[in-house]
């Protein structure tokens, strides 16, 4: 899934960094100079899952401007409510088409103008 997402957002002009779970992601974020504009987050991950990561990220003033988008198979109503309540900005359910992902990013103002479909 990371490869697919990497492909989609690279085409939109993003540089991509990856981490395999929430804890690794927080560690990685601690080392970068520039806080990413966007985080695409799965739910089910070992060590620290996506929901826990969202809560931790929203708790960190330094990561305040990072847009948090869940990308996951977890599609029960309750899950989505919890993620949004915890501070996720958007939620993409798998399976999703490339167009759908781009539209969600456009909703968030993250697609450069002129990159419309």
């Amino acid at each position: 899934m990371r490869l697919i997402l990497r492909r989609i957002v690279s085409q939109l002009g993003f540089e991509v960094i990856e981490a395999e779970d929430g804890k690794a992601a927080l560690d990685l974020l601690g080392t970068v100079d520039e806080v990413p504009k966007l985080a695409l987050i799965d739910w089910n991950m070992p060590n620290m899952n996506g929901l826990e990561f969202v809560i931790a990220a929203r708790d960190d003033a330094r990561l305040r401007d990072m847009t948090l988008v869940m990308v996951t198979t977890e599609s029960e109503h309750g899950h989505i409510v919890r993620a949004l309540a915890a501070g996720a900005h958007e939620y993409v359910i798998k399976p999703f088409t490339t167009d759908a992902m781009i539209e969600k990013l456009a909703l968030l103002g993250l697609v450069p103008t002129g990159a419309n479909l």
Partner: protein
Amino acid sequence: MNEHMTPTVEDLREIADQVWKAYLDPEGVRPLIQVDTAVTGTEVSASVSLTGAWDGHVLVSCSNAAAREAAAAFLGMEPAEVTEEDLTDVMGELANIVGGNVKSMLPPNTAVSLPHVVTGSANRFPMTRQIAELAGTWIDQPFSITMWQSSELAEVPA
């Protein structure tokens, strides 16, 4: 519409249609064709386990050629470029997506495991019975999605 406890073959069909539309067949020219007979000739499978209010497994199985094509479609590369790792990743992700969508139809306190991929003959699940099979061919290759429910412990004959 379908307010029932256990997902059915029709539900597997709908979930598969979504996956094909999103990743394996966005242009609608090479769909998964459902067949009546059980599928044979699968060489790689990926499964996720579901536990909680419902216990069992969701298994995605196909031939090596189909897995390679699926990985190519998923990752936007040529089949020849697909590595073993790509294949495992994609099969695992397919099981994750199908299993995750099955799970979302079950009671809320059901958990899904990380995917488990094996090559060779299909995963054997002890103490389970197959409750649904979506048997099909994709690009003339065997492809199936099956659901297995954990059985009660059987009486051991004396």
